[in-house]
């Protein structure tokens, strides 16, 4: 039986990918960012997940122009890293798990989440930067990935509470898949940042710290945060944190915090990272 063994929260800043690809990760600006993931890379090496359900948002790469889904799930065999305007990242193609993804998609729709299924898509830094952070520079990604995408950009996104409940429904879907799979779920994006307008550069360490404090033991408080509060407190792109609530919703009661990291800045963004093991 497939089971969710752990959840990971992490930022997915595109500049982190650029720093890796340009060989800058040992530079003083970047070294502290990557150091925050050393423990996690070693942990992943031991944890050996078969599949990662990777929750992220597409940044006007495969979506947001003609088609703007609220929740979508990739059911393809593989996902090619996209050219976001400076050439595609030199990282491996991401292998999907189409059968598992289809099972999850169907289960979610029966659970009354109105999923959009994508049979083909290219993936941007929202997926490839977390993979690089958690698995390092590799010839082949050591996991298969089920991509779950969320609209966090065009108003209104789904509420944080609905995201949490989507996570709960993902957990039910995973638990009903007959194959024996070690599954992790990653919520990506955030933490506080704003990439637009005169308020660009907003960082809210207090908000981020409280979010990390509560994630394991008091998710009920986080479920109540409104869109307005995310925008006001965490910046217009800080609302990406609703995707961490999908991860948290899938973990159930009493997960254990194994690792936690917070650093400002990476480019425009506060970097947050947490590793939770399911109880």
């Amino acid at each position, binding site marked *: 039986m497939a089971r969710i063994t752990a959840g990971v929260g992490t930022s997915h800043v595109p500049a982190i990918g650029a720093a890796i690809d340009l060989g800058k990760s040992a530079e003083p600006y970047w070294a502290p960012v990557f150091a925050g993931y050393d423990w996690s890379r070693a942990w992943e090496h031991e944890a050996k997940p078969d599949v990662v359900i990777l929750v992220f948002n597409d940044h*006007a790469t495969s979506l947001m122009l003609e088609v703007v889904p609220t929740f979508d799930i990739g059911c393809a065999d593989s996902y090619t890293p996209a050219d976001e305007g400076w050439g595609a990242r030199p990282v491996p193609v991401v292998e999907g798990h189409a059968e598992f993804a289809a099972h999850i998609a169907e289960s979610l729709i029966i659970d009354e989440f109105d999923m959009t299924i994508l049979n083909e898509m290219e993936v941007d830094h929202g997926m490839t930067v977390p993979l690089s952070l958690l698995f390092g520079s590799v010839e082949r990604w050591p996991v298969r990935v089920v991509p779950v995408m969320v609209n966090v950009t065009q108003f209104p996104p789904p509420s944080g509470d609905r995201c949490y409940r989507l996570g709960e429904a993902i957990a039910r879907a995973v638990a009903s898949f007959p194959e024996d799979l070690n599954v992790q779920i990653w919520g990506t994006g955030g933490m506080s940042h704003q990439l637009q307008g005169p308020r660009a550069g907003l960082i809210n360490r207090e908000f981020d710290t409280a979010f990390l404090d509560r994630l394991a033991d008091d998710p009920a408080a986080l479920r109540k945060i409104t869109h307005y509060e995310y925008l006001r407190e965490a910046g217009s792109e800080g609302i990406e944190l609703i995707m961490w609530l999908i991860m948290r919703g899938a973990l159930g009661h009493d997960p254990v915090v194994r690792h936690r990291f917070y650093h400002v800045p990476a480019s425009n963004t506060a970097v947050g990272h947490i590793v939770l093991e399911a109880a």
Partner: protein
Amino acid sequence: MSDSPRPGPGYDAADLADIPGTTIFTTASSRRAYQLHRFCMSLMKAENRAAFKADEGAYLDRFAMTPEQRQGVVDRDFNRLIGLGGNIYFLVKISNTDGWSVQRAVGTMAGMSGDDYAAMMVAGGRSPVGNRSIKGAH
């Protein structure tokens, strides 16, 4: 009329307009900037970036954006383009094409020099204090 409860967003839509220096990207913005955004996404192909760099005007002629949007692209005026419906995730494909870092592109919108903006970020970023509300100024 309805038998189902309505959850509601938990905030007043008008509150969204009260956040300083912040523009909400909506379904209406998306439609308004559709041709601008088609242009931006076209820059995800190397041959299109080359064509744009070789002759910006001729390349921009391929897209039926408004004259204001077109001038905003020519001027790389991201604040203006956001006012005209644009969203940063599309616009950043222009600055990527220019070889600018995302930080440099974003910094232009804050009205600060690149060095000042970078220094602000290293020092912990822009504080939310005083940046939460236009009306309340807190």
